[in-house]
């Protein structure tokens, strides 16, 4: 016997959850599917093919106040309320990578408390995201989530992975059922030879491919903003008229021209091809060396939303040579 969430129970289950938590889920808004706060009457699109923004903004908000100042002196703003977020398995994998990045020797308290406040429900449904290449990356889907919902047609098989997850599954709308006999979805053969790709990227930015890409890429940074793993940030003091304000964390992008600019005018990645190379190198060489896996889950958003229509997947594969 396993726990099961019949699909017809989904909306009542969400309504019930939203009484104790803020609930976030992919929902259709103005023709776009995006992660938004669930309210009664919403029909979440758990089998989304893409969302314009990844779920990272809930854990690493753009414009987060790190320290507020003025008046009584600097203080750390209180954490937001507890929330539950539904996302697919690929996006949940990205969160597990962010967990490693913002953990480690220097723990990022802000990220950490968002994670402690959150319950992640990963949905496994075999839906291929637009331009996705997750299967080719050979993702292992570590346990970066609290509950796993596996879509088996008319119902989701629900498994709790953590205490937070078990609490969530105590709902009366989760019933006992049978394990699925449905075969796992087909997976493509792993194509990404990270060893080879990483070795090529280590050759640096003066390879032909980066000079070619420089002619196509606008260096606009969209690929970083829509990436569920990209996390580089800048910190600026936002000041109010009364002199108080917030030391604020903003999303940044290594593709932008002033990313490595220092006071005095030296720019350590002033050339576009150097910045393009760095984006790929970080994801597929440095991250692999640091943590044994790339800073990429193959969700395909960077391809889907690239205004220059660069086939990033193909470009990575070119690096195998």
């Amino acid at each position, binding site marked *: 016997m396993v726990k099961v969430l019949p699909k017809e129970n989904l909306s009542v289950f969400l309504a019930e959850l939203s009484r104790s938590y803020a609930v976030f889920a992919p929902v259709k808004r103005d023709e776009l599917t995006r992660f938004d706060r669930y309210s009664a009457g919403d029909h979440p699109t758990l089998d989304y093919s893409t969302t314009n923004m990844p779920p990272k903004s809930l854990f690493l908000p753009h414009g987060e106040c790190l320290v507020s100042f003025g008046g009584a002196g600097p203080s750390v703003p209180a954490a937001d309320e507890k929330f539950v977020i539904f996302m697919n398995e690929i996006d949940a994998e990205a969160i597990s990578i962010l967990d490693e990045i913002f953990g480690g020797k220097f*723990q990022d308290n802000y990220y950490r408390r968002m994670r402690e406040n959150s319950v992640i429900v990963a949905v496994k449904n075999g839906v291929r995201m637009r331009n996705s290449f997750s299967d080719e990356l050979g993702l292992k889907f570590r346990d970066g989530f609290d509950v796993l919902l596996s879509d088996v047609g008319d119902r989701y098989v629900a498994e709790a992975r953590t205490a937070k997850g078990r609490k969530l599954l105590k709902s009366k709308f989760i019933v006992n059922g049978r394990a699925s006999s449905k075969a796992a979805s087909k997976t493509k053969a792993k194509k990404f030879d990270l060893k080879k790709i990483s070795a090529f990227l280590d050759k640096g930015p003066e390879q032909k491919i980066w000079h070619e890409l420089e002619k196509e890429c606008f260096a606009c940074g969209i690929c970083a903003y829509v990436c569920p793993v990209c996390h580089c940030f800048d910190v600026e003091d936002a000041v109010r008229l009364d002199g108080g304000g917030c030391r604020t964390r903003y999303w940044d992008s290594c593709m932008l021209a002033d990313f490595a600019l220092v*006071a*005095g005018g030296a720019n350590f990645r002033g050339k576009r091809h150097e910045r393009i190379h760095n984006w790929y190198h970080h994801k597929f060489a440095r991250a692999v060396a640091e943590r044994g896996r790339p800073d990429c889950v193959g969700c395909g958003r960077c391809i889907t939303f690239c205004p220059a229509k660069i086939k990033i997947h193909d470009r990575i594969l070119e690096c195998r040579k």
Partner: protein
Amino acid sequence: MKNIYLPEKAVVVQTEELGGDSTLLTMRIKDAKKQAKFTWTPGQFAEIGLFGYGEIPVGLASNPLDRKSFQVSVRGVGGFSNALRRLEKGDAVWVRGPFGNGFPIKRMHGKDVIVVGGGCGIPPLRSLVEYGIAKKDFKSITLLYGSRTKGDLLFRRDYGRWKKAGVDIRLTVDKEECECADRLAVSCSVGVVTKLLDSFKPKKNTVACLCGPPVMYRFVSKRLIELGVKQKDILLSLERRMKCGVGKCQHCTINKTYVCVDGPVFTHEELMKGYGGF
């Protein structure tokens, strides 16, 4: 748990104009216990901040064995650095750190140390020189320091004391000026800092510590290697946009390293391994 982005309050104890658009700030962390624990390895940096402006990474410039206060030199190049230069005794500053690795002083024990500085790259080297003098840790210290003009040579007040302590100081300026009233405790030649290496004969155990602009690194490293200094014994302190200081924000990366965590001091050997550079 410690919040890595929350700075510690410090107070400006003294300010001193150094010339070259630079100001030396002497500071003390408000919490006496924390101040007593605030020490570093020469070459490490701290994030110095003012609320309403932001933070900048600066090399710690004083003797790390002095636990009563610490110093940084700030060159006024932008709105924030100039705001720091306007600080007065008693004003509050906010500090995070120390961060990074610093010079490998354990490995440098008993060695002949040559310190090469360019322009406003001298502050972390000053920390090293002061440490070396106080600890008598190195066999010898030779300081080669070059800047554009005599007025840009920082820490002029220290040269006499350093010389007395046995430091071999050689200075140079890019251009000779007839109207320079500064009287230095040591003589000063004209030319780029590499020129000072012409008369320099490294010993077998010489370790070189460099801090200055990338162009200086290129020429000085080349010359040192020609003179027989091993690549692993040439240590360079790099400048990058170290925003967070803790290896998260991604601004300061070179190849597979974070300048803020793995550096800012690297050996020439390390930097030449990948596609990196200075």
